[in-house]
């Protein structure tokens, strides 16, 4: 009974997560619970372990301690691509697109899981192949339209300007049909206008696709502007969490970012 209630409450939960690289404790006692429909920010100084935490949640690294739950299901030992089918998607700090594939193909790759036809069906070009490809073609084009990328769908991804590449990465993540999407520094390297646009894009996907969002960001204007809850990480440990106002006035956070008084 208790478990069923929990399932509805949160989408993603990390319990006492920790990982050691040799003697370095990169992340320690990382507890995070993200409710459905939330927009949570993860901030912290450089090297605090934010991306490592992301890699733990998405399965790139296997945690040394702790467990990860996705919709009440334990996914600690699942490989990344299986976790994607369970409803977690991510983008990368340094953009990772399929550079020499067309923009349309970049999105279509993410639909691979929702397609069923076998290699034999593909080589014989049976009706099922055409039917599924047509469906996916339409879906991929719809997503590109939402992100205003439909006019460049036949470009190579590497020929897109920076802002559009970021958008395409988010579009690709959305195409896996996720429940929660993890954005790793989406505004890195963007100018103020592009950041504004990104903020509206994030709000748009949150409403349109009903996804929960966890994002790492250094741009405080963006974080304080759109996040409902913020988690602050320093030296691999959570030092504070709460709404933006609480975080702005938190003493530990100010110390972590600006340094404390000399005793």
């Amino acid at each position: 009974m208790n478990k069923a209630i929990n399932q509805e409450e949160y989408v993603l939960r990390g319990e006492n997560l920790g990982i050691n690289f040799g003697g370095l404790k990169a992340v320690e006692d990382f507890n995070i619970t993200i409710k459905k429909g939330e927009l949570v920010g993860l901030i912290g100084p450089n090297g605090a372990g934010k991306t490592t935490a992301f890699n733990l949640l998405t399965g790139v690294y296997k945690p040394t301690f702790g467990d990860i739950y996705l919709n009440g299901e334990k996914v600690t030992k699942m490989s990344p691509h299986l976790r994607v089918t369970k409803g977690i998607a991510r983008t990368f700090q340094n953009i990772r697109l399929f550079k020499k594939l067309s923009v349309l193909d970049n999105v279509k790759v993410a639909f691979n899981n929702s397609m069923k036809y076998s290699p034999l069906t593909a080589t014989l070009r049976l009706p099922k192949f055409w039917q599924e490809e047509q469906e996916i073609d339409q879906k991929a084009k719809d997503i590109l339209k939402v992100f205003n990328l439909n006019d460049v769908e036949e470009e190579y991804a590497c020929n897109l300007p920076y802002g559009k590449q970021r958008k395409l990465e988010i579009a690709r993540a959305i195409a896996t049909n996720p429940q929660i999407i993890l954005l790793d520094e989406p505004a890195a390297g963007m100018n103020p206008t592009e950041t504004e646009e990104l903020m509206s894009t994030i709000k748009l996907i949150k409403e349109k696709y009903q996804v929960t969002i966890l994002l790492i960001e250094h741009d405080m204007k963006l974080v304080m502007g759109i996040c409902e809850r913020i988690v602050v990480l320093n030296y691999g440990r959570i030092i504070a969490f709460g709404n933006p106002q609480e975080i702005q006035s938190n003493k530990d956070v100010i110390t972590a970012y600006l340094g404390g008084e000399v005793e």
Partner: protein
Amino acid sequence: MMEKKVIYRSTVNPNLNKKRWLVNLISLILLLALIYVVFGASFSKDIFKTILGMNYRQFVSIFISILYTIILAVSLNLSTGCLGEMVLGHAGFMAVGAYAGSLFLKYSGAAADDNMATIIAILIGFVSAGIIGFLVGMPVLRLRGDYLAIITLSFGQIISTVIKLLNFDGSGKLTGIPLNRNIMLYAVIVIIIVLVIFTFMKSRHGRAILSIREDAIAAEASGIPVTKYKVGTFTFSAALAGIAGVLFAQNIGVLQPVKFEFNYSIEILVIVVLGGLGSFTGSIVATIVLLLLPEVLRFLQDYRLIIYSTLLIIIMLTKPNGLLGRYEFSAYATYKKMVRFFKMFPQNIKNLPQNIKKLLLKIKDFFKYFGPNMKKIFKKMGNNIKTFLKRGGASDE
């Protein structure tokens, strides 16, 4: 403003023109008919002797070697060009298929020119090379990095040594394999293999494989089972090399382990790189060019290999991405081009005098650009230098 031409770059276009099928089918039938007329028909022997003055049997042998090398190159392109894993022991898998198929042929007592036995031998070669490929690929492809290159390199050497030690015939060679030089059968097999690989790569599976080449981590994060696809593709590629091995054995009749050593693997890799990594038609063109070159250059005698290597260097310098890059030859596109050419033909003739009017010096849109994208932006602005300079080259994106 110039009309913006959209080049289709995606792997699958589900809204294909129905005409395409017809054109492809007709060109396929024409190709087979051409091969039949040149090599297969009973009168072709006379053609070779009377018209070309060439030895028919020698030419058939070269043609068969082209056919099985096409299989080798195309299958290596699948794992090296499309999957992005360097394979340095492709000849090793070919050896596995060749020996498995030949041992079957020899000890089942198949007669020469027995097509049914050849097909069974091909299946045996396919399966045995596939099993070995799976065993080699399974542990290695789980790792990230270029381990496969080293493992396959040593695998190729191990296979030829193991065959030497097994010593099937007691003389180091496997002799007495029944010959079968049925060109039409081999041509059909090669066409089927190329078609299967082509259609396979132009599907969701092909897209997944290409995405792994571009970025394995991002592919994994997009829900692609990377290890499964890597092992599957590598196994398939190795199994196809096994088929090539059987054709090789039936063409020559004698197998020597020396043939399948490192040198031969590199020779196939050269063909693939020269044709363009990721372009199957490129591999086919490069196979034909590289196998015919030594024959054509035969009149140079001892200088042949120097010229051959120099030509290779020149091709690589002028075309660093290979002969065709990632471009694929398409019968339908060629057909459309031809139709357009003939439609425009009368108009072109009419404009000809104007086109070659005498001019002392005319500069039209003279332009020097740095970087690959500038040309595209320039074209997008209607090839007009004034608007381009006004915008300072900034694109409207």
